[in-house]
């Protein structure tokens, strides 16, 4: 019996101690007509070797293509130490640290994490994680609606340049509370949120403005102006940022006059592998003033009976297990292990290391763009500065190009036509420090073939490439 240590004698002894004859008797309170007892459709259990063959086949089936997709999930190098430590049983198999004295490892680590995140974001306080970036943004929106004392509005201004999946997720999570997302358009030339269009909402009744940095196009937003605009108009400013970018870009705590009110985002670039989209983690920071409105667990430093430093969950009165229907959120289990990894990741890289990695990613993007645009017919869609990801305009449908590239094991980027049909044949491409020049040359070469075959109008060639 995998994982069940009972010997037959022990089982017998225990049934006797309980005073029943059989296992079945233990379920006597379940109405007889409801009892099932057969899951044989699931087949027999596999032993480790079998399941390991199975999983290896699945892993092999997915290949290991050369990936130039970013779009919210980034293929960074993760220091070897990160997961060797994070999977230590003491981190990996502990529960939420309810018994503080028996959880000082996790608690101190989370306190250190909060300290690092507030530094990185230049914000006052941080929680200990939410699910992912998209749901963290939804929580930020809910928090803003609760916390905004200047406005009772349930409307939120959201740039169209926000990640479309984030927009969708926020919508799912806030709509039942009657909160409405109002779209702010982007400038077709720069790719930034259109400040003039924004100003048309001046004085309009909104609880908050969401400010992504960089936005979904990789484009850097005029964050100072947007923050100032929001706060001048009674809105809370909610930053949504790539944490790695914050190693080199102005952090949200310094945007505008006095910084944003809430900063959130996805922590994936800090030590989480791509892993098909998760687990990652959502982070959230806010101003001291708003701390009691923040959802999620928070760790505080305190002392023990003998005056020794120690760490514990604090401000639990915000949380569902204490406040139930009046809690700041229903979140309970969060993404603790990913935070463990992120804390290790940040410790191992430091500010200098993160900045270098960020710069290398970005430098690589410059190289890639040059290589691809030098093919002719391809050009950047926007004029504003970007960070490590950008939109290229292609002379033919992105979907077709991507399909052909994929057949050559190159994932060439993310097709924007579904969410941004107005951009035409637009492709979002990304580089990280993991893409080498020879990777880029391979991309260029394959793309060149695609373009050439199109110029010859030769469907046959295309087919051959496919």
């Amino acid at each position: 019996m995998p994982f069940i240590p009972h010997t037959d004698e022990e089982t017998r002894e225990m049934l006797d101690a309980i005073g029943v004859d059989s296992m079945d008797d233990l379920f006597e309170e379940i109405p007889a007509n409801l009892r099932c007892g057969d899951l044989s459709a699931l087949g027999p259990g596999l032993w480790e070797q079998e399941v390991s063959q199975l999983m290896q086949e699945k892993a092999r089936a997915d290949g290991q293509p050369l990936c130039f997709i970013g779009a919210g999930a980034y293929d960074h190098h993760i220091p070897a130490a990160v997961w060797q430590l994070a999977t230590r049983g003491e981190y990996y198999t502990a529960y939420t640290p309810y018994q503080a004295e028996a959880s000082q490892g996790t608690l101190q680590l989370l306190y250190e994490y909060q300290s690092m995140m507030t530094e990185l974001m230049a914000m006052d306080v941080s929680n200990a994680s939410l699910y992912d970036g998209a749901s963290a943004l939804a929580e930020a929106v809910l928090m803003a609606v609760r916390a905004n004392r200047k406005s009772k509005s349930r409307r939120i201004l959201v740039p169209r340049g926000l990640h479309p999946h984030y927009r969708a997720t926020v919508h799912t999570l806030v709509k039942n509370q009657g909160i409405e997302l109002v779209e702010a358009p982007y400038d077709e030339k720069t790719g930034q949120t259109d400040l003039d269009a924004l100003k048309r909402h001046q004085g309009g009744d909104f609880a908050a403005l969401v400010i992504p940095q960089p936005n979904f196009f990789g484009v850097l937003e005029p964050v100072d102006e947007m923050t100032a605009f929001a706060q001048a108009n009674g809105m809370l400013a909610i930053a949504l940022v790539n944490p790695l970018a914050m190693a080199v870009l102005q952090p949200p705590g310094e945007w505008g006059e006095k910084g944003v009110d809430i900063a959130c985002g996805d922590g994936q670039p800090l030590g989480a592998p791509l892993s098909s989209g998760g687990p990652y983690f959502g982070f959230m920071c806010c101003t001291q003033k708003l701390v009691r409105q923040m959802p999620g667990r928070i760790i505080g430093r305190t002392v023990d009976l003998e005056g020794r430093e120690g760490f514990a969950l604090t401000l639990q009165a915000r949380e569902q297990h204490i406040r139930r229907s009046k809690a700041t959120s229903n979140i309970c289990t969060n993404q603790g292990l990913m935070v463990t990894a992120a804390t290790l990741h940040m410790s191992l890289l430091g500010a200098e290391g993160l900045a270098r990695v960020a710069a290398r990613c970005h430098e690589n993007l410059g190289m890639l763009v040059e290589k691809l645009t030098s093919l002719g017919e391809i050009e950047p869609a926007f004029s504003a500065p970007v960070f490590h990801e950008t939109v290229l305009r292609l002379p033919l449908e992105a979907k077709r190009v991507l399909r052909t590239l994929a057949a050559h094991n190159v994932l060439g980027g993310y097709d924007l036509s579904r969410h941004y049909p107005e951009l035409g044949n637009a492709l979002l491409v990304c580089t990280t420090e993991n893409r080498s020049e020879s990777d880029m040359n391979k991309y260029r070469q394959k793309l060149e073939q695609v373009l050439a075959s199109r110029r010859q109008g030769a469907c046959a060639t295309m087919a051959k490439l496919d």
Partner: protein
Amino acid sequence: MLIFEHSRPGRRARAQAPAGEAALADIPESFRRKKRPRLPEVSEMQAVRHYTRLSQKNFSIDTQFYPLGSCTMKYNPRACNSLAMLPGLLGRHPLAPDTHSQGFMSAMYELQEILKEVTGMSAVSLAPMAGAQGEFAGIAMIRAYHDARGDTERKEILVPDAAHGTNPATAVMCGYQAREIPTKADGDVDMEALKAALGPQTAGIMLTNPSTLGVFERRIEEIARLVHEAGGLLYYDGANLNAILGRVRPGDMGFDVIHMNLHKTFSTPHGGGGPGAGPVGVSQRLQPFLPIPMVASDGSDYHWLQEEEMPQSIGRLSAFAGNAGVLLRAYVYAKMLGGEGMQRVADYSTLNANYMLKKLMEAGFTAAYPERRATHEFIITLKKEAKELGVNAMDFAKRLLDHGMHAPTTYFPLLVPECFLIEPTETEAKESLDAFIQAMIAIREEAARDPERVKGAPWSLPVRRLDDVKAARELDLRWQPGETST
């Protein structure tokens, strides 16, 4: 000592970043950061040493018995970890095309199928990232269902008083009011109160069965009938699914929607607070509303179901497809158990709980529901001990830590005074259970002899009892540059 205290300006003894500066020249100064964040500047060794030693201060399944009720702290097989972290799976981009995703998608599809079979539901979405998000998805689907029928006056979700805090909190997040239903002295829902509460305003009810009181709700069929008759739907909080795997299925009990905590029943690790996964299963009528994305199969190939294919879906719950790595671990676990193994989970977790309950009662401890059969967990109340010895449930809990065991869940559910919710799980051997029982007896004896010893516990851990009041009052939520600690 904090990691920051190992830091020295300019220390960079690590190989984790490229040498030399790269160019950011095309990013104008105005966008650039002026001051470096004060992250730790430590050597690789210092980081490794710091976090290795820190880890040793934790209790965990891999080191201690951890009978935390409602949390299902069972063994997390190591194969699940290594197989979910195979390079091919770890490196897959969430937006990779289907051509490069069939391996991953097949695992997700099979997991959906396994969970359908196990719960008796018609369809499953793996999207929710934890139990509470599963609850959200479930209640949002109930709402979408009523809305789709134009039945928009239903404003209430019924929740038993014993329910987990996430239940009422979720109801509110979905725009409902949560209305409490009392529990009877025998642990079952008060049917009269339920009947009185039901009405045209009832959107649905959230139930855990077995409940968080550690007993099986016997009149579940009648409840289902009553709620359905009132036009409401039934939500099953699957946190306790471990108790009934292969013994009874929520779908058969009449539930319309269910979430599962894969980090409990399917043994993915708790990671010191997460990540988890909270897939949702539904009956036929809620199927159109399931959260996206889901994986479908045409028999040979797998593809994603998105907005286009599921126009009535409540929508996305995350940027991508949920906690994929957790789902893979659960899949591996399920494959290792097979059908028979699933049932054994329920059998032996129930056996362990009933054995402990019986032995504790024999030793003179008070069961909260002495007439009832325990499920995979059970409650004792330390009311008598608190009164007679002046040593309460928290004191017992802290003293257990000195015995090298994690404490059970204390003071939950709220309706039982001086409550210990004890869940041993099926992976613990009889000797662990016996050791726990012995420890409880020893602590009670000690409390009679030397109550201060118990009230001062723990004595053997890195810190003694922590000052929570100070923590909440004098908020200290981050290290401040310049400080040095004790």
